[in-house]
């Protein structure tokens, strides 16, 4: 029997034994059609989903390749039913195509008449269609290009969009590679996107997605609309573009809550785009403000639902999505696939770490024991107050101080949820605190000072959640967290763990109260981080204090 590194599970997950000698070859073979779900130390889990298979089809892989890879690397016989299922699912992609017809404009064509008939019978599809063009084609109202793709995906017959793109308004953009150069995977990612037309580039946190965006713009050489998660992130994009491209200050506009500039390259936040007044999206016209040649979506996995609806109308423009993960908590992966495009590039995560592009990180959970009185108070607390109570226990302050003392020469970031607790920590540690009420200008000043190592310890609230770049924070201590989506939270934690100039590893502490809901949330975090491949260990607060 073959002794391959791969085990195929009945629930369509693939287990890859990473220490196996063929593991690398196997990873390369299965990456196109399976999404990496978990990457703990010994066995990585990939999942085969219809979307992943269609992504593979869009990237030019066929079922034969997929089946060969599975059979070739599998340790045990692969159940036939699974192979049949894969072949059938893959065969569904591209049966229908959206094409541009010289006379009829946008048309839906099919090589399989039965499929076309099946789709045409759908009541939801009918209103989007125009006249029937012979047996194998039907006209589609151009405004429905996005909606019909969404719908066809739901029907299980994803259409291949070959209708092309408008070039948009030309605008010269080149990369300014002075003193730095595009990393090989960044170049590959940008090229893969450009050849595919539209789609999503998946890169881990800290791998330089902004630069991939810049490279994409240099390919398009056209006016570009960039959609980002928040204002700070918008600033960062602007700074990065100024540094990496030929663009000047005048060419880049910010379209945020405070500024409303529309320039050849415009950076807008999701928030401003989804602001509604009397039920109307008041900034919708931004999409039509210029003849955009490229639209960049940062953090696609966080793209809010209204942006999807707006994107449905932008199908004739090139779109590139940037993300660290295709997994969405709301399960709208299908919309990303049909509206932004299939996955165009997926970075070999492990290789990137080996090459030093992303930092390995150690995660340490420090367990604090509540005192007897605190426990009594905790038991009596109202359900909604419980988390706050256990997350802000004074014992945590002592442990945090001890941890800061443990790393006297490193830049330390302390992250928390509750302002009172943060203020107290700031006071004890004599460190500045950035919270919601801190002015943007002041925030940036503090961040800069932190980067310049003028400040060693910085205390931040959840405003630091997204897209802030704190390259020199090699130690992060989380004292309390949001207990919302574990994906979102871990994403944030991942963010502070960027590659360090010294090349050393980062360390992430989370201080947790034992036997409380705090510990339950921590269990989720632990699982997520361990699944991401971070080393994880649990220690007792007493050990920290004793070593102090």
């Amino acid at each position, binding site marked *: 029997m073959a002794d391959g590194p791969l085990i195929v599970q009945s629930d369509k997950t693939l287990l890859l034994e990473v220490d196996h000698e063929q593991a690398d070859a196997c990873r390369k073979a299965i990456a196109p059609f399976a999404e990496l779900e*978990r990457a703990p130390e*010994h066995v990585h889990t990939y999942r085969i989903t219809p979307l992943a298979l269609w992504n593979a089809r869009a990237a030019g892989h066929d079922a034969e390749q997929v089946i060969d890879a599975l059979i070739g690397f599998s340790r045990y016989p692969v159940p036939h039913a699974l192979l049949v299922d894969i072949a059938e699912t893959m065969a569904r992609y591209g049966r229908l195509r959206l094409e541009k017809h010289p006379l009829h404009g946008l048309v839906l064509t099919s090589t399989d008449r039965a499929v076309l008939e099946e789709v045409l019978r759908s009541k939801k599809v009918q209103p989007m269609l125009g006249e029937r063009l012979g047996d194998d084609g039907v006209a589609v109202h151009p405004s429905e290009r996005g909606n019909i793709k969404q719908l066809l995906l739901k029907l299980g017959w994803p259409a291949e969009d070959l209708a092309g793109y408008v070039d948009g308004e030309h605008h010269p953009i080149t990369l300014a590679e002075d003193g730095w150069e595009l990393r090989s995977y960044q170049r590959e990612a940008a090229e893969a996107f450009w050849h595919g037309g539209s789609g999503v580039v998946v890169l881990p946190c800290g791998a330089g997605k902004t630069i991939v965006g810049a490279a994409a713009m240099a390919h398009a050489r056209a006016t570009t609309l960039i959609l980002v998660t928040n204002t700070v992130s918008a600033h960062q994009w602007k700074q990065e573009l100024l540094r990496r491209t030929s663009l000047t200050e005048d060419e880049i506009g910010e379209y945020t809550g405070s500024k409303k500039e529309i320039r050849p390259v415009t950076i807008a936040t999701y928030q401003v785009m989804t602001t509604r007044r009397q039920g109307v999206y008041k900034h919708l016209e931004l999409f039509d403000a210029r003849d955009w040649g490229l639209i960049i979506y940062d953090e696609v996995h966080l793209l809010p639902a209204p942006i999807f609806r707006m994107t449905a109308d932008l199908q004739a423009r090139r779109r590139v999505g940037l993300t660290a993960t295709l997994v969405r908590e709301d399960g709208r992966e299908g919309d990303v696939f049909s509206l932004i495009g299939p996955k165009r590039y997926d970075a070999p995560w492990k290789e990137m770490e080996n090459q030093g592009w992303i930092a390995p990180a150690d995660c340490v959970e420090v367990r604090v024991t509540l005192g007897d009185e605190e426990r009594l108070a905790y038991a009596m607390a109202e359900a909604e107050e419980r988390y706050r109570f256990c997350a802000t226990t004074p014992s945590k302050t002592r442990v945090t101080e001890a941890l800061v003392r443990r790393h006297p020469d490193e830049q330390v970031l302390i992250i928390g949820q509750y302002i009172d607790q943060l203020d107290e920590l700031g006071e004890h540690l004599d460190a500045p605190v950035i919270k919601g009420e801190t002015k943007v200008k002041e925030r940036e000043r503090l961040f800069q000072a932190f980067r310049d190592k003028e400040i060693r310890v910085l205390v931040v609230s959840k405003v630091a959640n997204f897209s802030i770049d704190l390259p020199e924070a090699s130690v992060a201590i989380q004292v309390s967290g949001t207990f919302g989506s574990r994906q979102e939270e871990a994403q944030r934690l991942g963010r502070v763990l960027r590659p360090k100039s010294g090349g050393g590893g980062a360390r992430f502490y989370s201080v947790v109260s034992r036997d409380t809901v705090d510990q339950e949330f921590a269990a989720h975090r632990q699982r997520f981080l361990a*699944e991401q491949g971070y080393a994880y260990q649990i220690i007792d607060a007493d050990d920290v204090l004793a070593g102090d």
Partner: protein
Amino acid sequence: MSTDFAEWLRARSDEQLRELVALRPELITPVPAHVEGLAGRASSPSAIGRVLDRLDRFTFAVVETIAVLPSPIACAPLRDQVARALPEAPGAADTATTDTTAAATATPITAASVFEARFRETLDRLRTLALVYGPDEALAPAPGVREVLDAPAGLGPPAAEVFRHHHRERLAELIEDLGGTGDSREELAALLADRETLTRLLGEVSPQARAALDELAWGPAGGRVPNARREVRLAAAQSPIEQLLARALLGATGEESVVLPREVGLFLRGGRIHRDLSPVPPPLGGVERDRARVDLTAAGQAFAFTRAVEELCERWSADPPGVLRGGGLAVRDLKRVAALLDLPEWVAGLIVEVAHAAGLVAAGGAVDGEWLPTPGYDAWKVRTTEDRWVALATAWLTMDRVPGMIGERDERDRLRSALHPDLRHPAAPEVRVTTLNLLAAAAETATAETAAHEAQETRAARGRGARKTAGAIVPAGAAGARTTVPAPTPEAIRERLAWEQPRRRGAHRDRLMEFTLREAEQIGITGLGALSGHGRALLPAAPGGEGGSRTASAAELLAPLLPEPLDHVLLQADLTAVAPGPLTGELSRWLALAADVESTGGATVYRFCERSIRRALDAGQGADEMLAMLERHSTTPVPQPLGYLVADVARRHGRMRIGTASAYVRCDDPSVLDEVMADRRSAPLRLRRLAPTVIASKTSRATLVDSLRAMGYAPVAESLDGDVIITQLDVRRTEGPPQPRGPVTFTGPDADVIAAAVRAVRAGDAAHQARRRPVDAPAGQVPRSPASATITALREAIRQGSQVWIGYLDSQGNATSRILEPARMEGGYLTAYDETRAAVHRFALHRITGVSELQA
């Protein structure tokens, strides 16, 4: 009843009769008294129907031809008639121009020889089956055959029958319009049998009318028209149908139905009765699959299927679904199974049904209200994977249940649910075996063809002119040596089945066949559409298989393809343990206790969590013991978070203790309790001091009070030994052993029974023929013999076909003596020809007082 037929049967040799009853066992249940009885039985419509069902298309066509042609018919004209139906008639080859090269004519000549051989063989077979009788010069269908074949080859009834209900005046009109004279249906039939008349009549009708006739020509011969009985004269005929009715080219058989008389039909068919008849079955070729890959794929599926059954039973152990009031499993519960196993619903239905057929689940619990695993499941669970699979696959092969119909509506529009008593079809096991045998045969034929092809190549190399003979001999090992096996398409299989069992064709059987193919794939009997090695070994008539050891060899073939059980797991920091293959029993049971299964397949992923660790601690495991177990079975160090988790859960585990006490003693003065504890008389009460002021007791309050009173106190209890109560998963089972339906077998009666039956018929017949008088029993008493000796003697007599003298108590209790020729002994009765009464009788064995050999 034709006495000819009985005479012919009587003239058959014993060997031939034995062959007959072996092929048609229904003829001797019960054993007929004499040959006439046998002939009568063989002519009954049901018996004929049964045997016709088993004929292949060619053989059946020969029967039809004989039935259509007037009897008796000689062999040669019959042969010619059948030959006309061949796609390329051998007659045509004879008239082919002689310029064609030998190579070009080789094929038809070969085809002709194949046909010739097949025809002779078929005729012999039909005589063996007693469907056709008589010598070569005068063949006739057995009585009853014509009646059973109401529309042979799709032809309508003869004109004489079609026009039977027409009154004389109308017949006279028709005959007149046809240009004849007379008023009887025989005269009309004679006219219609005349080729010239028919040619003329067909020439007269309009093209539409002609098209309508052509439509009916190749059957079915009947059609529906409104007002079929209208009596139209030739002159008045307007519509195409009227033109045909007026010319007797169509006859009315009802108010709205017409039929094409057989004579007209035959004429339209150009003298042929069948068309495109092939003496050999259609080829079963398909995509060639790599044999090793087929076996591996099937083995993978076999493993997955077995796992799925196990998973189902485990789930039902703890959480059994209810039995519906009418029997069966609710749709909702089936959906839950499908969701649990992550499989389509039809596969879930198959798994449930197979588990049931294999006796692993049954209705049990309170008033049979729940579907529960049986004690048989526990026995099954501990066997090896291959044995477990063989048990499942055999159950599937022989069950008459049809899981494919789950979710459909029955004739009363009720949803068919899984496990419902009515979800069955008697033909299901037979269709399964037939279909799989076809797959096995496909591999054989493909081998034969390859061999024949190779042989031909060799001969061609030696020189031209060598004739290819049909049925090249295949080297015995050829099938095993081949590296590929064909995967015939369902269409090819359907066509082949249609050829092999034309009478059994039907939408229903086609569906059963399709179910068989898809289910065999799911179970892992086939892989990539081709029969796997272990699947083939399961088949009852597996070519080359050894009787008895077949099942064992299926397991033997499967075993090396299945993953080996492992004794280690990979532990990871995300608190999972990955078992990269099936685990050894001990480890897998331990992990099932201490962790939750997250995903199954080739590997199993377990997840440790607080709850699962606590479960293990509850079951009496200690933290150190668990860590040691993990270290022993992990190839890598135990991740720190996992060790921490175990220690952390153990730290809190058991800190609070709960016990049961039926009574307690409470006293504010601890010294009184000290006293009670110290008192020897309190020992039988098994008291336990919980706290200085509390003592718990397991005895009931009344006993405690009485005892303490007796000791001079006033009376009051927790777990006395302080042990943690070991909780166990609530696993449930049915009360009794499973009662699966016995497997359906297709074996006919065995040779002894057949021989005895033929002897009995012969004996009866001899008596019947001779009308001989009863023989007097010898004077005197038969010596009494013990029952076991009686039975042995009778069995011996049956075997040798000899006569015996017995003593017998009749129903009035009178002692009699008889001379018997025993035929059969079963169910406590002896069936024998009674020479003294000259008839076949049944004798109760317990009333036979003694047996003695008859002196010559």
